[in-house]
């Protein structure tokens, strides 16, 4: 398309997506979006036809998580738009760059309760970083450019573009426009209210560097912002330069290698004992791209109460939202860390020395020795231990395997037991906690990297929410692998009922027998397996790893009584962390 060439809104929209470098659109057509689907036939962009629009949204998220590029989904108006509400909210809470295009009834029909009309921009206003209702075809190239700019810069997030049918329909004069493609300068000038700060304030950086060198019990609290800012290398440099341990939140697993001696793993409600306690006892919490989420802090007033706080985040609203920082730094995590590293270097060169942290390091290794992750081994005749399944899978897959999970016990065990040694190998729903996330997210990740192994670790409850997308995976030849940790319960809810509701189990039992996951998988064109005994675990995983021409589903029948430990009960202080019953004796002695 040449500048000033006459065209129409639908063709311009697809052309604009091509120019933004979009490789794949996840979507499903319908009446209002029909004119935009027509030019897809000629486009270089791959379209993956989903079976439910929620799947399209999570696939776009999975794609974005592993590539860092914005995921794109496209659906029609009304019920299709409401079907993507969950993924939009999910992407909003986890700062996932995503562009969602929805069809809308013709502009003149808006507000008349026309067929399949809903107020999409109104509904999604609070769960998108920004959204647009296009009112003029000539705005399309500009709006698409703005949407990608907004989705991917500053704190990333989902942007929605709602397109009325008349504006994209070539038979309608309202769809006419002369093609143009705005320059970067024009995009920025057109958004006078959007100027994300990326470079940290030099005085604050210097203050942070001095505090880091002076701290005796420092710890780094690394959040998802590290991955969003592609700051994993910088983080490693900071940790190694100072010898400071790194705690990686659920959203930051893989941002610092688990096999690094300075890695402490996951904090929070189901964090490991050492990570949790390091926060409680630290004198300097170096917070990088994290947001003091309640699942991390537990009771806020008692969280890290001995610590001074450095808080660096690209979103100024996170600074002081939950915890008042001593040194607030607004900026991109990678730039800020690099600046802190060079500030520390020049302090060291000018003769400053770092405080002695050896006692702190001993305390940390003491905790690690006393309270490693623990589960009781399998008892013959009983069901599989989910942790054992995870360890076997972990030890028999390539180290760059992409791992996705649903939400529940299986998610926490995966985060605890997997060894994430590379960034962008862990895809999960942290902020919204969306059951049903993993199957479509895995498909999105595999669509991005067809040559990598992609495993989704799912719960039986979660799997039943979005499993039909395996039909999409089969038909589109996106061979993901699914391990269902099938405890026949909504296990996480069952755990709360066991521990906090006197073992009164209300509406958490699913079923022992239905669905038959193996048959269900096979009916969707996947290879299906069922594993009951520990001896079958490894051979079945090996078989699954060999299959590359279709998706694989393994139904691991696991022990329903198994609980996730450690655990900080909701609203309790992190210092009241409950460890595995077998470790209770050691508690409180540090």
């Amino acid at each position: 398309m040449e500048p000033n060439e006459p065209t129409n809104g639908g063709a311009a929209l697809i052309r604009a997506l091509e120019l933004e470098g979009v490789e794949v659109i996840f979507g499903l057509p319908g009446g209002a979006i029909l004119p935009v689907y027509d030019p897809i036939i000629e486009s270089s962009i791959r379209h993956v036809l989903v079976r439910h629009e929620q799947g399209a949204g999570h696939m776009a998220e999975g794609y974005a998580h592993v590539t860092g590029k914005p995921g794109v989904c496209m659906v029609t108006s009304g019920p299709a738009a409401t079907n993507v509400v969950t993924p939009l909210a999910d992407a909003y809470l986890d700062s996932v760059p995503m562009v969602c295009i929805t069809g809308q009834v013709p502009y003149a029909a808006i507000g008349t309760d026309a067929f399949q009309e809903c107020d999409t921009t109104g509904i999604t206003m609070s769960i998108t970083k920004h959204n647009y209702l296009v009112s003029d075809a000539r705005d399309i190239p500009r709006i698409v450019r703005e949407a990608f700019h907004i989705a991917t810069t500053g704190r990333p997030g989902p942007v929605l573009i709602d397109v009325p049918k008349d504006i994209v329909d070539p038979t309608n004069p309202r769809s006419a426009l002369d093609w143009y493609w705005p320059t970067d300068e024009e995009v920025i000038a057109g958004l006078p209210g959007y100027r994300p700060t990326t470079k940290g304030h030099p005085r604050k950086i210097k203050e942070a560097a001095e505090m880091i060198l002076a701290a005796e019990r420092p710890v780094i609290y690394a959040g998802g912002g590290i991955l969003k800012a592609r700051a994993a290398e910088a983080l490693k440099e900071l940790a190694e330069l100072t010898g400071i341990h790194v705690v990686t939140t659920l959203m930051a697993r893989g941002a610092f290698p688990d096999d690094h001696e300075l890695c402490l793993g996951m904090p929070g409600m189901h964090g490991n004992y050492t990570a949790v306690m390091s926060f409680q006892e630290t004198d300097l919490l170096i917070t990088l791209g994290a947001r003091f989420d309640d699942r991390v802090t537990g009771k806020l007033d008692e969280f890290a109460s001995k610590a001074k706080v450095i808080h660096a985040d690209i979103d100024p609203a996170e600074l002081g939202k939950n915890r008042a920082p001593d040194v607030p730094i607004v900026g991109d995590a990678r730039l800020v860390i690099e600046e802190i590293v060079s500030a520390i270097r020049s302090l060291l060169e000018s003769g400053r020395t770092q405080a002695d942290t050896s006692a702190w390091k001993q305390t940390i290794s003491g905790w690690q020795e006393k309270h490693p992750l623990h589960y009781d081994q399998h008892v013959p005749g009983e069901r599989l231990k989910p942790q054992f399944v995870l360890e076997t899978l972990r030890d028999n897959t390539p180290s760059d395997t992409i791992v996705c999970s649903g939400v529940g016990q299986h998610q926490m065990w995966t985060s605890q037991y997997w060894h994430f040694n590379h960034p962008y190998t862990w895809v999960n729903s942290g902020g919204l906690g969306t059951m049903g996330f993993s199957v479509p997210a895995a498909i999105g990740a595999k669509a991005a990297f067809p040559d990598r192994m992609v495993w989704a670790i799912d719960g039986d409850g979660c799997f039943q929410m979005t499993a039909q997308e395996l039909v999409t995976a089969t038909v589109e030849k996106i061979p993901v692998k699914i391990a269902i940790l099938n405890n026949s319960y909504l296990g996480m809810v069952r755990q709360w009922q066991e521990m906090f509701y006197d073992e009164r189990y209300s509406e958490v039992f699913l079923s022992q027998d239905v669905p038959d996951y193996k048959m269900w998988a096979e009916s969707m064109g996947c290879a299906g397996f069922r594993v009951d005994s520990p001896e079958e675990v490894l051979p079945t995983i090996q078989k699954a790893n060999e299959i590359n021409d279709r998706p694989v589903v393994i139904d691991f029948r696991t022990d329903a009584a198994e609980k996730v430990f450690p655990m900080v009960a909701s609203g309790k202080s992190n210092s009241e962390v409950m460890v595995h019953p077998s470790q209770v004796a050691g508690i409180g002695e540090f």
Partner: protein
Amino acid sequence: MPGVTSPSGGHNTNKAVRHHTLVVLVENQPGVLARVAGLFARRGFNIYSLAVAPTDDDERFSRITIVVDVESSPLEQITKQLFKLINVVKISELDPDDSVERELMIATVKADPSVRSQVIELVDVFKGSVIDVGFDELSIAVNGEPDKLDDVEELLRPYGIVELQRTGRVALPKLERTPPRLKSVQNRVAN
């Protein structure tokens, strides 16, 4: 609207609430007021009063003057969250002590011929005007500082207020009282 409390009702009524005025410059685009109001509702902040009007550059920008009743730390959070809205270009926070505020009130008051002149006199004292006259009612308009309008309201009440509307306040920062050159000297001395 869930995020809006009336001047007399809402939360925190037993405590004297401190009002802050936020002057928010927004791009003049459809739905922008909904974004601002929606953000207050979604984040659990209360709007005390709100006024919207085009600016001198009315093609591109509008000004929303929002009075919020919060203590200072949530106010910071409100401002930061507001600023994240893509269409919000600038936010100025006006301390009541450093700003001039005005509000317009119009009201219909019971005023049969026997008290009509009393009501007119009262309106005159507050430099207001009579904007409509009926058989036994008067409609009046008064503008001024919000506190003064409270007084007028109080004084009119005994006559019987039939209907009353206030616009919500608009505000501008107080101007410098000293010439610029003197001010820079003062600054240097103060530092």
